[in-house]
């Protein structure tokens, strides 16, 4: 019986084609197989995402509540220091809602970029030993960041509704998905690129922290676009709008910061954000191709 099992296995295998392992793929032709391989392991992607989320708060008494404490404390600090002491809240109505909208989206971006950057090195044990589409690791970092953002967003929406400041539903229809998607594609693209770079040069993860800190202040989270436009010349303002996160944050604020409806916004904000989203998609394509080339040597460099 065991022999027949062996024979039937050999018989089945003889009909299977030989498939080349670790085949080098072309720049254009490699995209589809790469993403298809990731799609083939979507169950694993989900499990890894869940692992990230669960492991982060396992064994802590407050558990997931901790993911709220950080942004809420940040909110409090900025509200007091910048809103009250520096007086930003005088020109920005409903300052707390304004900040929290920006903070939530910015948190999604930083979570995505910084956890993705260390994701490949952090999973060295698996990468060195088992063959997988390695894109799964930065993508699971994106997944867990998205999960956190979900919670933040629910809090934001509840805060908007409960404090009576409301939500601009019509704008929310395009602004919320567009802002989130723009943040996601840029975060994923940068995260994927940096994750691969970090394998070869560990300085990258520290560089990322610094870069994100700078990015925070280049995005209208604790100050408004009006202040930038007022202080800087048109050239600088234009440059400022080249930051995709500025566009995404302002788009989200259109929807959740109803009190700021009368405040000036850049002309053609939806279109500009859409442009940033499209550029992000292009970047994501490039980042994946770079990642794919780099990952061939991950196992020996890590």
């Amino acid at each position: 019986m065991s022999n027949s099992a062996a024979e039937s296995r050999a018989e089945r295998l003889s009909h299977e084609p030989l498939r080349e392992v670790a085949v080098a793929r072309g720049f254009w032709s490699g995209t589809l197989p790469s993403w298809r391989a990731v799609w083939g392991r979507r169950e694993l992607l989900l499990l890894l995402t869940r692992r990230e989320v669960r492991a982060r708060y396992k064994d802590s008494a407050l558990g997931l509540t901790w993911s709220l404490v950080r942004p809420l404390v940040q909110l409090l600090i900025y509200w007091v220091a910048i809103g009250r002491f520096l007086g930003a809240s005088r020109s920005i109505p409903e300052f707390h809602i304004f900040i929290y909208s920006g903070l939530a989206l910015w948190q999604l971006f930083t979570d995505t970029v910084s956890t993705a950057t260390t994701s490949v090195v952090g999973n060295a044990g698996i990468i060195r030993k088992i063959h997988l589409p390695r894109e799964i690791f930065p993508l699971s970092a994106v997944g867990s960041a998205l999960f956190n953002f979900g919670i933040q967003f629910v809090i934001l929406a509840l805060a908007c509704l409960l404090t009576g400041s409301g939500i601009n539903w019509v704008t929310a229809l395009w602004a919320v998905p567009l802002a989130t998607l723009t943040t996601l594609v840029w975060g994923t693209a940068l995260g994927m690129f940096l994750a691969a770079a970090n394998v070869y040069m560990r300085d990258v993860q520290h560089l990322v922290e610094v870069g994100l800190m700078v990015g925070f202040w280049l995005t209208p989270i604790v100050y408004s676009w009006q202040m930038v436009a007022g202080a800087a010349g048109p050239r600088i303002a234009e440059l400022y709008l080249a930051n995709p996160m500025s566009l995404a944050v302002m788009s989200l604020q259109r929807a959740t910061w109803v009190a700021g409806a009368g405040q000036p916004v850049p002309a053609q904000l939806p279109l500009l954000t859409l442009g940033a989203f499209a550029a992000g998609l292009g970047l994501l394509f490039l980042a994946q191709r770079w990642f794919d080339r780099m990952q061939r040597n991950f196992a020996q460099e890590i």
Partner: protein
Amino acid sequence: MVDVIRVEHVTKRFALRKVKSLKESVFAVARGQANSERFTALDDVSIEIAAGESVGLVGPNGSGKSTLLKLIGGILAPDAGRVSVRGRLAALLELGAGFHPDLTGRENVYLNASILGLSRSETDRYFDDIVDFSGIPERIDSQVKFYSSGQYVRLAFAVAVHVDPDILLVDEVLAVGDEPFQVKCMEKIRQFQREGRTIVLVSHSAGQVAAVCDRALVLERGQVVENAPPRIALGRLRRDYGDAIEAARHRSDLEGSAYRAKLVSVTLNPGTERRKGEFDLVLDPGDDLVVAGVIDFEVPTPDWQVSIIVETTLGGLVFGTDTDIMRVDTGIGNGVTPFRVVFPSLQAGLGDYVVNVHVRDAEGLDLDSV
């Protein structure tokens, strides 16, 4: 036979990078130093493995055997050549890679199974088997950081062997857990073999390779130098190891000894011919073994010793003796001195044996050996 693994003219080089940070590499470039050295781990290697075969990869450290295994597994990409496989492949390379200490055993089983390529429904189906095989059902719902290291690898092994592969790659992991569990592991491997699965095993344990494999490949410095049944391949490896060990010991002993001597010739039973370093001597049980030789002492050496050790080709000691144990008073050796040792009526099992002869000074330091 269907070949399930085909490695064609594969070359793999590693860049041994000396720096890992931006600062260091900037300095290195500024000083005009090369940032890396190239090292060839595999040099134009071609092998084929058929369905149902069990093949051992053996060789000294750094010979490229693990690299070859990783290339087959797709973990590394070759610099030149092609690697192709047929069927589902699973790698038992490091147990518990991907186990997360904060998750429970149950969660880790699902995660690990998924990493190894099982779908969720398949894992559901095998889950009870996996827990049963691991032998730790009572702990499955506690976090794995509270497991003992033995329990940890047992669970990891249990997951790995339930992946249902056509090709199983194994790297030095069969010797895990306590003895009953090891027996269970070997049983599982045998079952895999009966089911016609292909096994590729990297191991330093000659006994394990001999027990599991139908064929062994000896790798040395990135090349396959022997491709033969385990007994022959391991014999070759053993000889190469023996030379290396002897050379190392010889060097250190010579430094420690004031005496110099050379084994001019060694012969086994009179009339036995020697071909390519191997004696064409066949003994029946009960025959005598006579080891004779000539030693040339460069300086007078008091209380010199001759030691004779008989080993199997796998390196197991069969028997041995020396003039010290035999209480032979050798006196002072000077110039050309013959010796003769007789082992009367031997009772050794069927097989190939290796005879090592050493000349030592009074303190037991090696002067020469064959």
